[in-house]
């Protein structure tokens, strides 16, 4: 069974701080990983994705994520957060080799950026 785990339900930081939101997955096939952001009252928006190549991928608004096969992780990072980054962040995984088109979403991490 494919699973994706976001261990932190809530993360609170101050504006200008760096932040890391954690994502771990549990299967070993060829996988596709992505992060989405959801602002309150809105649908999810794509941030970034990884399939192969450089394990550090850049996304919009200064976000980046690093894939680690040894740790089964795909953590999202930002060097200096802004109040507008307050939102819920979802990690999503698809096992490419399975032939399934289903993205499995984590339960989300609520990021709150304090002024």
């Amino acid at each position, binding site marked *: 069974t494919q699973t994706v785990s976001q261990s932190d339900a809530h993360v609170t930081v101050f504006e200008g701080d760096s932040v890391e939101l954690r994502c771990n997955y549990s299967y070993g096939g060829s996988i*596709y990983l*992505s992060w*989405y952001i959801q602002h309150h*009252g*809105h*649908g*999810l*928006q*794509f941030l970034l*994705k990884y*399939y192969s190549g450089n394990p550090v991928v850049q996304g919009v608004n200064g976000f980046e994520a690093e894939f680690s096969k040894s740790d089964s992780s795909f953590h999202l990072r930002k060097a200096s957060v802004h109040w507008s980054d307050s939102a819920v962040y*979802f990690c999503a995984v*698809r096992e*490419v080799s399975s*032939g399934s*088109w*289903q*993205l499995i*979403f*984590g*339960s*989300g991490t609520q990021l709150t950026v304090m002024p």
Partner: protein
Amino acid sequence: EAAVTQSPRNKVAVTGGKVTLSCNQTNNHNNMYWYRQDTGHGLRLIHYSYGAGSTEKGDIPDGYKASRPSQENFSLILELATPSQTSVYFCASGGDWGGRGAETLYFGSGTRLTVL
């Protein structure tokens, strides 16, 4: 920019009534999805479609039907609505990224359904 439009934005229904949630996409994407979002459960896949005329069951299809009459439109139908179906529903479309099954999803703004 890809566009996915859901209607209605809010819906109040009575138990046992029929509810239809509509979704329209202008991206010419083959794949479309219906999710529900509940506190503590994240996003759960209800039904999806690979193209016009196709519908597939997701993880939680019981109590729901789907219809994909065209490339652009994908509906979610609750024939006999129950209070347990009170939730926020999201539609999404996606196209294959590079032919490797690694698509980006574009989501609508959601429909808040309350079943009394």
